[in-house]
């Protein structure tokens, strides 16, 4: 076990550190013998997959931890061969259909059918059904989601689907209504502090509370990021000191720099510069939604109340449009331009007011 994140991941529902009532609910659900399809959603780094694994362990016992990697290949209607690797135990299979890109429908259809068509070998000891875990379900195409909705009903007796997604807004209502939604919210500050402290204790490290606080602040309530930051701090300088620097992810530093550049100057030339920076971010496969959010957060820091509202509205507006489109650069750029216009207007108004004020006095 390498990273702390993986090493100290809770194994069972009872071991979970936070959201304990939810864990209790899940436990009850499992103990009742059957459970519906699940739609687990929440921000990244909140512990969705951890909870899914715990749940599976609760259902099938330690056997689910005997994981193996399977490679499946599918033929698309256009006779193109696509390969997908899945993580599977004897009882469940975890697959990310979006690996197949636009052919995810084929994956859904084939995979779930094959799973549903095979019975459990030892059905007396085990449950009658197997579980399919679909990660990144929000990236499923509409076609795939429509393919899924019927399959979910048809093979209900043989398999259950657990979907793991950041946001349910991209799931079609038909799917949402077929699933029991489970929201995993990001841990709050105390929860995170306790987890960090527990982990450090397990590792035999002394974590200064000030550092923990800063790590939590910088991690934006993302548990995985917090743990990675903590581990990085430990590697970089061992006896941890309270005033140690905590590195942001590099792309975040880059976005912050970009935001500064936007604030510095508002001109078409600068916009061109910003564009190339946005391209660079996108080229690193940073999700555009994340860029949007980070950028808006950074920009808002430099605005006052009325402008903040407008900026956030604009960001939300463009991010929504982004979901409808396919070329994120257009939306990011349009947002930046919009912000530049607003900011420039704001500054000019401020100067004018100031001038007026001067004029009145003299």
């Amino acid at each position, binding site marked *: 076990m390498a990273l702390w994140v993986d090493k100290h991941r809770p194994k069972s529902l009872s071991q979970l550190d936070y959201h304990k009532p939810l864990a209790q609910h899940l436990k009850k659900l499992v103990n009742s013998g059957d459970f519906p399809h699940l739609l687990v959603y929440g921000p990244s780094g909140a512990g969705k997959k951890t909870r899914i694994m715990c749940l599976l362990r609760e259902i099938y016992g330690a056997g689910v*931890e*005997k994981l193996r990697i399977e490679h499946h290949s599918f033929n698309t209607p256009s006779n193109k061969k696509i390969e997908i690797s899945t993580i599977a135990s004897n009882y469940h299979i975890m697959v990310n259909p979006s690996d197949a890109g636009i052919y995810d429908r084929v994956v859904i259809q084939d995979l779930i059918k094959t799973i549903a068509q095979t019975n459990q070998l030892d059905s007396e000891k085990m449950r009658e059904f197997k579980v399919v875990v679909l990660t*990144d379900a929000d990236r499923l195409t509409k076609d795939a989601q429509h393919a899924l909705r019927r399959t979910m009903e048809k093979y209900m007796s043989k398999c259950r689907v657990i979907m793991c997604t950041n946001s349910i807004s991209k799931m079609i209502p038909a799917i949402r209504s077929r699933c029991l939604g489970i929201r995993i919210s990001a841990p709050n500050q105390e929860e995170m502090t306790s987890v960090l402290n527990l982990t450090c204790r397990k590792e035999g490290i002394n974590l200064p509370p000030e550092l923990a606080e800063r790590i939590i602040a910088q991690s934006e309530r993302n548990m*995985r990021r917090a743990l990675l930051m903590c581990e990085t701090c430990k590697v970089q300088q061992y006896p941890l000191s309270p005033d140690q620097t905590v*590195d942001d*992810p590099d*792309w975040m530093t*880059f976005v912050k720099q970009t935001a500064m550049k936007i604030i510095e100057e508002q001109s078409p030339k600068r916009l061109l510069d910003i564009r190339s920076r946005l391209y660079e971010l996108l080229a690193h496969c940073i999700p555009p939604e994340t860029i949007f959010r980070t950028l808006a957060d950074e920009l808002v820091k430099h605005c006052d109340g009325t402008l903040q509202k407008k900026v956030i509205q604009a960001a939300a507006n463009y991010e929504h449009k982004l979901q409808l489109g396919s*070329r994120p650069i257009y939306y990011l750029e349009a947002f930046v331009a919009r912000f530049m216009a607003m900011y*420039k207007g704001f500054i000019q108004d401020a100067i004018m007011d100031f001038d007026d004020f001067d004029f009145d006095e003299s």
Partner: protein
Amino acid sequence: MDDYDPRDFYDEVEAQFADEMEAMEAMGHFQGKEDVETPGYMVSDEMLKRAMEEEAMLAKNKENQAPNPDPIESQLQSLTDSLRLDRTAPVNTADTPDPTIEFSFMKSSSLSSPAPLQIRNSFDKKSVGNQGAASHKRTSSGEGLFGEDLEIVGEQDLGKRSKTDRESEKVYTRVPDGDFIRINTDTQRVYLKVKPYIEKVTVDNTSNSFLAQPFQYLKSQVMRDYREKKAEVEAAISRIRSHVVPAAGSGDSKGDPRNPEEFQKSELWVDDYMPTKYVDLLSDDGVNRSVLHWLKLWDGVVFGTKMRDKAPVEKPKWQSQEDWLRYQRFQEPDYDERGFPFKKAILVAGPPGLGKTTLAHIAAKHAGYNVVEMNASDDRSAAQFGEAIENSVRMTGVLNKDNKPNCLIIDEIDGAGAPAIQVLVKVLTAGTKFSKISEGDKKKKKERRLRRPIICICNDPWGIALRDLRKVATVITVPPTQSARLATRLKTICTVEQLTADMASLLFLCEKTDNDIRSSLNTLQFLKANKEPLSMVKLKGMDVGMKDKQQSLFKFWSVIFTQPKTKGNALQRLTDTQRHDQKRLSELMSLVGGTGELDKQVDGIHENLLLLKIREANFNKLTESLDWFTFYDSVDRAIRSTTSFELYTYLMYVPVAFNLQFAQVHPPKITIPAKQRELRQKQQEVEDMVDMIKRESLVQARLGLSCQSLTTELSSYLTRLICPIFRPVNIQLYSEKEKQSKEDLLTLMTCYDLQFVQHRSTEGLSQYVLEPDLYSLTRFSGVQEVKQLPYSVKQMLAREVDLKRIGAGGVEPSKPQNVPKEESTKVPKIDFTKEPTPVNFLSKVVSNKDAFARKKEAYVQKLRTFYKFNEGFSNAVRKPVKMSSFF
């Protein structure tokens, strides 16, 4: 003489001229004159006058030289006014063409005009020596070729006359019945019979009547005939003037004026007014000449004529590139050692409607070939193609009555498949040094060279299929026809067709059709059907003549970013603003539709927009325009995902919006949009890397491994985590803590299958590079790069990781694993999923096995030796080691 067609002669002369550019131009000038026929007459008149003078001189000379001057001359001279000789004699009089018929030919050839006179004169010479000789002189001064022929004929006839009986029917040795003339020579006295004059006057226009007429009378008669004829065939002549001769029946029914209504129904003007002669071609003169020149190169092979050497060209004084190119062209030899042209095919390329096909046909006919055409309508698979070439080029058709050699014209060759063109290339290169046939094949059968010219016609010479052909063929690109030239021709046709049209509107039509001959003619014919005069207004309002033309993307972008030029003064502009804007909008819309590839258009606009000089205080215009992109993208996505293509109409407005917002006075510099493609490429690279990491990393690590988490979190921290602080000392000297951190690091690296791999940089320095290269995921311009381990530590780690992978390093995870491990594909053979016993191989195995088994086990384990070659060496550490010391 009998079967000599003056038209052939004409063609030949013309072809000769065609070889020499200056002469040709002079000729073109001459032919291009309004009146073709008149100069012909004028010339012969002058010649006649000159001949009369010469005649007198010659007569004197003869008198002086000849020992006994012929008394016939003076006698006959006196009789010419009143008498006509019987010309029913068999001596070539029957073949003499009727002068009027001959004159009708003169439309096509002014140079042939002396022909009838010559023949008449040849008779004169025999009977009326003085005049005959003079006339003969005249003709020979006019045309050398004819003159020589005539002389021979005349002499033979004289010889025959004195001997044969046949001639004595007309020339009597005894006194004939009726009126006669007595002629005394040295040895003989003969009588010529005189026929009454009146009889002959009635057949005034027939062949043999004008010998006895005075020249002035003949001349006036001829002129009168000519004028009558001219009046008669005025419509036809007007066509001839413009060098357009109706294609159908060009050989015989020249004279009849066609009823325009009639053939309008039956035929297209395009076919109707297709040029039939070389000089009528509308295409560029230079191109015409080049094609004909190339065809003439074949004369040596095809007709066996002697090839003319090139006129030596003076080396130009580097004045222009054109001079130099011409010089170059003249310098390089056209023929190979056996007299074959080097380039055995010609590729005529150019956009449609320039008259390429017509040019090829006419040039081939002109050079004396029988045209065999092959076009896209024929079967053009490779096999069929080869066969067709074989048939048309190597054989002569049985039905080919002219017995002319074939010239193959392959039209629309860009439509033929690549294999077919390969066949053609093979034919072209057969037997030459370009031939790709191997030595063995050559011995078996000697390939026959191509012996006939092949003309290929295509629209785009740069097609991939034509690549090989371009190398072995002369490529000639036909430039667009000049508007003025085309308009002039159109004007003539309009006159003939009685369609009123002014030059300005014709020029406008030419412009509208992009100087496409076919298209403009078709448009004219269509307009003619309306029976209204052609006018500018009407043309403007019409969609006819508009071609669906493809604009290049570059042109499109520059148009989008450029303001249209407005005509008229400011006041006018103000008043027409609305109309102007509407026009601009519709023009832009048609431009957008005409260019196609909307996504590329928008991409280009997106990339070039911010490069423009935008002067704007507040960002409103720019913000608004950037919203257009988001609109475009959203709609585009909607179209694609729901296949609702009706929305496409709205997308067309996107480029228009940019033109209205950002058009500049001067066209800006346009760059090719590449960013989107670059982005996709880079994203693909990153995705591939993520994929690889996912595939190779151990299964426990897989759980939290998605593309997003890897790019946004893991990569940043992993690169920092694999860089702990190590003292730069030997690994043996590490403290416990350091060893522990080293162990942790190694576990981490194997977990994600990271490895330091030695690479040699371009400067020759070897360095260790992380593979897969996580650093590339975290590298942003302007952000401080993550610190990396020093070289020596990387080297040590690389070794340790290797050892760990092999599994013989003995670096087992110290704590017992409560979760069994699943192996990634790279780690060989050791099954972690089983009980941990076999893994810790030495100590645990010893405890429960006997000595022999232990030995055996140890041996088996020992045998698993791995060698690794490290690049580079140093003699300093080299020492001989026994094999056993490795075990």
